[in-house]
């Protein structure tokens, strides 16, 4: 059973460029979240997609945008790259239980990440 897969694993861009990162969720999962992990920091929530819509968003500028496709896979796009965007970008998937309340831990399954370096 494949877990969460992300591509590319590494990439280098220059300031001002745009980047697209891709994520395939774990089989059976329908919700995709993206996190940014800067060096020496913990993962920070960017946004979450469910039913092809952005459902929640963290404190990130509009340069960060995303998309979810009917097969639940997702893309993260970052425009006008800054040096400070250099980080490990983690995709996490989960299953959204029916109804408003979760029955337990919000256990996210993470991919290995895409390491972005902005020069």
């Amino acid at each position, binding site marked *: 059973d494949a877990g969460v897969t992300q591509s590319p694993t590494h990439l280098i861009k220059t300031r001002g460029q745009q980047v697209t990162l891709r994520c395939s969720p774990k089989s059976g999962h329908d919700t995709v979240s993206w996190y940014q992990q800067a060096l020496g920091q*913990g993962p920070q929530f960017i946004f979450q997609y469910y039913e092809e819509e952005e459902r929640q968003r963290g404190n990130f500028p509009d340069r960060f945008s995303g998309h979810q496709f009917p097969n639940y896979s997702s893309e993260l796009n970052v425009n006008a790259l800054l040096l400070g965007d250099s980080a490990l970008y983690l995709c996490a998937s989960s299953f959204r239980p029916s109804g408003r309340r979760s029955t337990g*831990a919000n256990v996210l399954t993470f991919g*290995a990440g895409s390491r972005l370096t902005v020069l």
Partner: protein
Amino acid sequence: DQQVKQNSPSLSVQEGRISILNCDYTNSMFDYFLWYKKYPAEGPTFLISISSIKDKNEDGRFTVFLNKSAKHLSLHIVPSQPGDSAVYFCAARRGLQTGANNLFFGTGTRLTVIP
């Protein structure tokens, strides 16, 4: 604003001894707490969690303790094994009544278990 804090960046423990990793939080709206473990070149993997209505949860060698009044939780690993060497992240989730279920992570503690 770091709402989840892990003040010890690293910890070294002898094999067979107890490892205690600590985590503090500031947001009283957090209702669920999780620990993730991360090996190099891999994504974080879920280890253990605890609801705010409990003060202890145990799973094999791993036990998480929650002190709500102190806004503090800890992860105990007994006995520690070399394969436990990894970075451990504490994470918290706000109550679902807030409409959000994203996780807030600490900065991590690197555990090294010495054979």
